[in-house]
């Protein structure tokens, strides 16, 4: 955190000054470790074992916050009889379809009820939920349909004594029983003594009076089991009563100014604004069927139809009517995954002809960077919008494939447009930060030359396309021509008014006035709202994201600084900060509470303001009304924090340790080596290494340095940052240096089945060998900021990474890979290809390697 979010780390230092203990778990010793009370180096890719060990410790030593667990989690819920755990099936869950590499999740459901997830994969039980007969064969794994015919809802069974063998609590206990300190030591390389210390620190600091927070970043997400890493932390934190309370939580430290906003208002294939799923292709699907399939009976997702209809009204205005299902049919449909990596495959296959890159540099920033470049070389046209000539704009001229002779500039047919982008000082708009805070940045000056904002670009591109297609009667153009696309512009360059766009996102009522809360949204077409969770950001016609009341003039929650979604709440699920009766768990940790009439406190309560703790829903109540006065987790279909996830994940209801796709070790926990449903891509440029290969005996992980930003587009070109970390390097331990004859400041070549890169060597004791599985493991640290362009240069670490994805998030596994390292620079030109081929030969790599389940 000190390494990548230094300014955020000031709050860790504040906490430390008030007596907090900081534990840093990371393969390398970073600037965070330097300030932590305890640094715990572990093997990259073993966190589920580590966290699972913590869960086991909590359960065996009965360190859970029992009142919280009983009231707010699904610990007591009984799971259906058909469910089989990894304990029963040696590492896999029931419902595994080996042929299609996917799970049928129906057996994971609660007894007597089918619940929908608040997020994640929601289309997987489409047919069960719509009770429709269908013959469509889904293209994507993870959306395969089961044969069961369970009802869409029902009565959830519970056992408050937590003793029923099929209650979540007991399942959890059995599942994590094998995650012992001995096992943690063997899997993670963390000595038992150290691990116990962490267990004690975490549990002693959790409960009524104290809370523990977990902070993570892409070190947890960029794995083939990334979503399950976070799930493990969720289980732990829910057991300890650390969710919804001040000083608790699982905090995603996100790495880009508006990466949170980029998922809230997603430029992601599978989502519509506000985490509404993009519709999948189903036979004659109606809006109602979609809502039934994707929404929830209970909780705020019960109002999905209002959110979606309001979105359709925002986009298609008067053209979205009750008669045409509010233009629901205008939405294009998914058939499986269309993530950025599938897009590259489509480029290589020649079905995707054009590509927009807006502030993104996949030629060095995405896994298997070579595939990205080859994909671009197969395009008809490419538009790159950035500040400088990044690698993604110049690969046709000076990319690595030109050097190896795999591509010749004269043979590349891709037409490339480079359009200079405007900086944040040259445009107005909002960023959503890592704590869901929408903060407005105001335009300071006009952009120079041809530099323009992406708002300008998108608006004017749309305007031009609409003008060119105006008058077309072709049905395919209907959604485009019916689109509400008329924003006020200002200034000499006709910049669209960002605040007008924000107002559309916020939404308006029948009278055209801005809405102030998503609870005002209706499903009858009388309200419009571009992103329901952002509803209220323009309440009263005031740009709430631009609120800047100085911190010194308000309390520590600072509710009047900017605006947090939803409803300006700073801590989600904060109902859980009070006990079931609505009293704070403790005075120290008081946050929101029931004052006898209403919910009140330091923050905006994340609960219906007037719903008393003793409220119990009537039979057959729907949506928010169906939540009781103690159902703190209001977005969940059962109002509970999920220790066990009956839906939403495609790779299991409980996290289990699987080895990374490319691991030098076999899985000590189960005979199932890796996530059985991880997403693999078969391509000659994406060859995988066999697990346990002696040719690739080391583990490498990629990471950031304070001095640079992501793939370097905003840092490698700046002299003041470039001089601080002037070139690509790898970090290794003195022991590995001795083993491989690597010299401090010399060169190293790092090899995987994809390619080899070179890096200067920093031999440092900050990297430490670990004892894993009975042998010494060396890890190679690779900061991934570099590429050949700019002032600070070097090979891109992402050249090494395979495209192998988490099946839930379709995020690549770059945080744990097996590799080889040797002294000296890498071969140049065609010799590099031969060098890598030789490695593949030695490791016996074929197109089948790594494809096994």
């Amino acid at each position, binding site marked *: 955190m000190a390494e990548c979010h230094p300014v955020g780390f000031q709050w860790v230092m504040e906490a430390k000054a008030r007596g907090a*203990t900081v534990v840093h778990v990371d393969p390398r010793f970073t*600037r*965070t470790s330097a300030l932590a009370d305890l640094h715990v180096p572990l093997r990259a890719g073993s966190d589920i074992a580590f966290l699972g060990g913590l869960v086991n410790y909590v359960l065996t030593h009965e360190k859970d916050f029992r009142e919280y667990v009983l009231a707010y989690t699904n610990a007591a819920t009984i799971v259906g009889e058909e469910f089989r755990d990894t304990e029963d099936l040696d590492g896999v869950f029931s419902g595994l379809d080996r042929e299609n590499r996917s799970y049928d999740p129906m057996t994971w459901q609660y007894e007597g009820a089918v619940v929908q997830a608040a997020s994640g994969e929601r289309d997987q039980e489409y047919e069960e939920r719509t009770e429709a007969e269908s013959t469509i064969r889904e293209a994507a794994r993870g959306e395969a349909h089961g044969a069961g015919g369970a009802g869409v809802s029902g009565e959830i069974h519970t056992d408050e004594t937590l003793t029923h063998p099929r209650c979540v609590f007991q399942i959890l206990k059995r599942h994590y029983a094998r995650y012992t300190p001995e096992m943690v030591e063997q899997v993670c390389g963390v000595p038992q003594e150290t691990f116990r210390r962490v267990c004690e620190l975490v549990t002693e600091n959790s409960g009524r009076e104290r809370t523990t927070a977990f902070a993570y970043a892409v070190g947890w997400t960029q794995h083939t089991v990334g979503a399950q890493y976070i799930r493990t932390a969720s289980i732990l934190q829910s057991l300890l009563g650390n969710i919804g309370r001040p000083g608790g939580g699982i905090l995603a430290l996100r790495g880009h100014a508006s990466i949170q906003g980029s998922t809230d208002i997603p430029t992601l294939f599978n989502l519509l604004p506000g985490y509404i799923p993009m519709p999948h292709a189903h036979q004659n699907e109606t809006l109602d069927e979609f809502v039934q399939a994707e929404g929830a009976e209970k909780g705020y997702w019960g109002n999905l139809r209002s959110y979606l209809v309001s979105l359709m009204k925002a986009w298609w205005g008067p053209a979205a009517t009750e008669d045409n299902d509010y233009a629901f049919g205008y939405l294009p449909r998914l058939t499986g995954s269309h993530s950025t990596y599938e897009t590259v495959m489509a480029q290589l296959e020649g079905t995707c002809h054009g590509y927009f890159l807006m502030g993104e540099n996949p030629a060095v920033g995405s896994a298997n960077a070579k595939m990205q470049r080859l994909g671009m070389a197969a395009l008809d046209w490419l538009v790159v919008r950035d500040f400088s000539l990044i690698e993604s704009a110049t690969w046709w001229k000076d990319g690595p494939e030109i050097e190896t002779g795999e591509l010749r500039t004269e043979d590349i047919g891709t037409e490339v447009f480079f359009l200079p982008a405007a900086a944040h000082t040259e445009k107005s708009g909002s960023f959503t930060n890592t704590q869901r805070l929408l903060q407005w940045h105001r335009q300071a000056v006009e952009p120079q030359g041809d530099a323009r904002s992406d708002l300008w670009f998108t608006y004017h591109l749309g305007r031009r396309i609409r003008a060119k297609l105006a008058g077309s009667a072709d049905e395919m153009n209907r959604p485009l021509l019916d689109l509400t696309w008329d924003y006020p512009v200002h200034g000499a360059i006709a910049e669209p008014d960002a605040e007008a766009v924000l107002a559309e996102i916020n939404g308006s009522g029948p009278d055209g006035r801005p809405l102030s809360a998503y609870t005002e949204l209706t499903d009858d077409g009388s309200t419009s709202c571009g992103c329901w969770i952002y509803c209220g950001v323009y309440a009263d016609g005031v740009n709430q994201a631009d609120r800047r009341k100085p911190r010194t003039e308000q309390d520590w929650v600072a509710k009047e600084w900017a605006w947090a979604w939803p409803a300006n709440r700073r801590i989600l699920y904060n109902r859980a900060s009070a006990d079931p009766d609505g009293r704070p768990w403790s005075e120290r940790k008081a946050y929101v509470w029931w004052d006898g009439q209403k919910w009140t406190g330091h923050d905006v309560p994340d609960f219906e303001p007037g719903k008393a703790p003793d409220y119990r829903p009537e039979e057959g109540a729907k949506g928010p009304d169906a939540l009781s006065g103690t159902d703190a987790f209001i977005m969940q279909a059962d109002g509970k924090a999920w220790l066990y996830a009956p839906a939403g994940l495609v790779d299991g209801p409980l996290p289990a340790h699987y080895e990374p796709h490319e691991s030098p070790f076999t899985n000590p926990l189960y005979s199932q080596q890796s996530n059985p449903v991880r997403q693999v891509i078969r391509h000659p440029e994406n060859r995988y290494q066999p697990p346990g290969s002696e040719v690739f005996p080391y583990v490498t992980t990629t990471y950031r340095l304070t001095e640079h930003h992501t793939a370097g587009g905003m840092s490698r070109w700046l002299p003041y940052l470039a*001089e601080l970390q002037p070139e690509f390097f790898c970090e290794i331990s003195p022991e590995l240096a001795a083993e491989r004859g690597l010299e*401090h*400041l010399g060169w190293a070549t790092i090899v995987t089945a994809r390619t080899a890169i070179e890096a*200067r060597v920093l031999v440092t004791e*900050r990297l430490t060998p670990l004892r894993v599985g009975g042998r010494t493991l060396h890890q190679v640290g690779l900061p991934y900021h570099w590429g050949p362009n700019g002032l600070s240069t070097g090979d891109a670490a992402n050249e090494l990474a395979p495209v192998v994805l988490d099946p839930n998030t379709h995020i690549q596994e770059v945080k744990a890979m097996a590799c080889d390292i040797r002294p000296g620079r890498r071969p140049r030109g065609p010799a590099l290809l031969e060098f890598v081929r030789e490695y593949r030969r030695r490791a016996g790599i074929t197109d089948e390697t790594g494809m096994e389940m």
Partner: protein
Amino acid sequence: MSPARMGFFTDTSVCIGCKACEVACKEWNAIPEDGLKLTGMSYDNTEGLSADTWRHVAFIEQRKPVGLAEPGVDHAGPVPDSGTPPAEAPMTPTTPATDALPSSLAPRELVPRPHSARSSARRSGPGGELRWLMASDVCKHCTHAGCLDVCPTGALFRTEYGTVVVQEDVCNGCGYCIPACPYGVIDQRKDDGRAWKCTLCYDRIGEGLTPACAKACPTESIQYGPLDELRARAAERITRLHDVGVTDARLYGHDPDDGVGGDGAFFLLLDEPEVYGLPPDPVVTTRDLPSMWRHAGAAALTLLGGLAAVFAAHGRTGGRR
């Protein structure tokens, strides 16, 4: 009434080595880039203060001997101390803390020190546990400033805030201030010829603003304010650290009775000054100036007297040859 003397207190125990100070300083003062060189000195690629680096963050990878070795992990090859230039080192040089006592050879302490400074790492080895010291260095704005004293043009002057500033419109690049500084701070910019160093943001503090580095510092490792207040705060901090067992902590440059009369920018360090590249006992060179003049006077008289004697002895021409 002249304003209070202003200064920096750099508490390295909370420095996270982010280098925001280096960049903020450069942005504010429009300082040129200082070269793109990977040094191998841990994460320090600017090497030290110079004409083009007015704030510099030192990184020291260090072993803190606590006397417990990690079984099964051998450290192959010689491991030199941080005094070793990286080119001669087989690894990022680490060193045992210079003041570590054999008495600290206690079993590895895993209990976190209560809101102490930086921890030592879990990793232990033959030298002890690893810690990573970071410290942002800057011009000390000495009470008795050698650079200022020797400047022949008045380019260097002491401001109303007690700081020492070079006036870029006056400096003629004589270079005298450069070896006069006992800390090696001020330096000549090669293509420019003039001497440059930290101004403690003279232009900013004149309007009541905080110097750029202190303003940016995320963890308040760099604190700016009236020197008296800073000294009091530092004294409090050091007491607290000592109370919780951080016995390494010591102040540097805070003492008005030291060789430079105390620094306007002083530090809390976790090891001996020289580990950070700071002189252990700096003395302003001009402290000895009167004596130097006396010796020079004596020498001049010796010359005069010697020659007078020679000529007296030889007398007029035609005399004794």
